[in-house]
């Protein structure tokens, strides 16, 4: 006892020594964080400065062109939005249903164990592999061709694991007592899912969906693999309008239309020899980034708004 006890001076010296390490680590942390932020800020600033002369209304309303100054991103951003629409409509119901099934219905045994491991694995499959799969199945086997539908379904496959995993996590955050409370009044599993589990998991599911879509909108490899065109000077047919060929488009004709998307347009411009196109690429890069960031902002807003009313 006597030998082990420290004097006040010794205790203070010990604390000072510990605090020094504290300070050093803190400084290092701030430095690393600043470095990471600096790189991002520089990248964005570079795009903004380089692309500044293209931030005009025309840039958004013009098709691609051989002359850099007149080239715009109309077909690319419309294409990106439409592909995302197909992706969301395909991935959300399938992913949510799969997630709800795994959490609420599936028995815990080795089969579900294997399925779970494989869903995690699917999230790690390189996106170009999805592109190859889609080329074989959607483009040729199903005959969807190089269309918005093929691209949307391909990206849906790509983000399906994200949607499933976020659905499951959102469901797991719901306390067991809510489920028990519902079952105790005589509800079936489906009634419990329909009135409680799915609504309460919605903020988490939506967040996962939007993060998935934000990843999908920047994907290039699988879209190139299925053969999206790089030079498109027309828009997909608007439902119930008559085109130049005199044919009236049906409600879903646009899904079979050829298309291009933002990342492909950017890739196309950066690979041109004329340096004037670099300006277009930088401007389009900034627009794509703004699209992703605003999607994330929407996700955060929705989550905040919906969670306000859900508490246990």
């Amino acid at each position: 006892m006597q030998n082990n006890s420290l004097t006040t001076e010794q205790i203070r010296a010990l604390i000072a020594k510990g605090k020094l390490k504290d300070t050093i680590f803190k400084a290092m942390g701030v430095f690393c964080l600043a470095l990471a932020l600096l790189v991002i800020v520089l990248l964005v600033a570079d795009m903004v400065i380089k692309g500044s002369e293209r931030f005009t209304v025309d840039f958004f309303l013009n098709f691609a062109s051989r002359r850099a100054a007149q080239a715009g991103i109309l077909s690319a951003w419309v294409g990106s939005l439409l592909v995302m629409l197909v992706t969301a409509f395909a991935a959300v119901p399938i992913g949510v249903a799969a997630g709800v099934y795994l959490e609420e219905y599936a028995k815990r045994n080795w089969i579900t164990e294997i399925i779970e491991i494989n869903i995690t694995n699917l999230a790690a499959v390189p996106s170009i592999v999805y592109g190859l799969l889609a080329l074989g199945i959607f483009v040729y086997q199903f005959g969807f061709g190089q269309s918005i539908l093929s691209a949307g379904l391909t990206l849906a496959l790509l983000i399906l694991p994200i949607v499933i995993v976020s659905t499951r996590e959102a469901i797991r955050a719901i306390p067991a007592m809510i489920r028990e409370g519902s079952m105790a009044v005589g509800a079936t599993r489906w009634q419990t899912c329909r009135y409680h589990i799915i609504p309460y998991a919605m903020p988490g599911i939506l967040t996962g969906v939007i993060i998935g879509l934000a990843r999908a909108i920047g994907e290039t490899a699988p879209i190139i693999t299925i053969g999206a065109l790089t030079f498109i000077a027309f828009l997909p047919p608007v439902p119930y309008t008559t085109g130049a060929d005199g044919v009236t488009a049906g409600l879903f004709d646009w899904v079979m239309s050829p298309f291009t998307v933002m990342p492909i347009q950017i890739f196309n411009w950066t690979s041109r020899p004329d340096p004037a196109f670099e300006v277009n690429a930088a401007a389009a890069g900034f627009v794509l980034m703004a699209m992703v960031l605003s999607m994330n902002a929407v996700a955060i807003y929705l989550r905040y708004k919906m969670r306000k009313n859900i508490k246990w």
Partner: protein
Amino acid sequence: MQIHDTPTLKAEARNLNFFYGEAKALKGINMPIYDKKVTALIGPSGCGKSTYLRSFNRMHDLYPGNRYEGEIRFFPDNTNLLASDVDPIEVRMRIGMVFQKPNPFPKSIYENVAYGLRVRGENNKRVLDDKVEHALKGAAIWDEVKDRLQEMAPNLSGGQQQRLCIARALATDPELLLFDEPTSALDPIATGAIEELVHELKKRVTILIVTHNMQQAARVSDYTAYMYLGELIEFGKTDEIFIKPQDKRTEDYITGRMG
């Protein structure tokens, strides 16, 4: 003495065993539950009283690896609640439950109470309004919430939430109401309100209540069962159990020498 006090049976456990996987949690329980009476289950933590309670509405069926043996007979129709051909949903439609921690759904006060009726396919607004009001009155919370039925239930105080949960269970007119330590998360005033309510409710419904609080058992119940290590040690009228317990273990627990 016995003549004007022969209660009818509402339910009866017959040689009931229960297993969580390999672990035997209930050991050969035989016990009557009398109609329109309050029966309290007391005993130290882990004695199986909640496990026993949750057998009545087949709550254990929600989780894998649980197994019942024996019977719980439910009267007047003499159904075995634990039979594999009896749907647990049917059982839960007849037997209501109030949980340890108030668990209102993150929905409006109205929807919380109406839920049991909606599950049964009732969508007529007038019927729902009527039954919601009746249930809230039955749970002695109507006056506090009648002007704000559309407000979110989790914004109520803990005691109000628990009475709302009682209203939710009452809305579907259960024959038996299970209470799993309903006041353990509440302050003394809210506890008093719930106890008064239990006393009131036994005019309409049979009540089985788990409590860790012996004074509460003595105050609210007509019959008391003392459980220990998964066994039913003693069952009898509450005043008899508390005044002259037959078993040494019951006496030790009640007098505070154990537990």
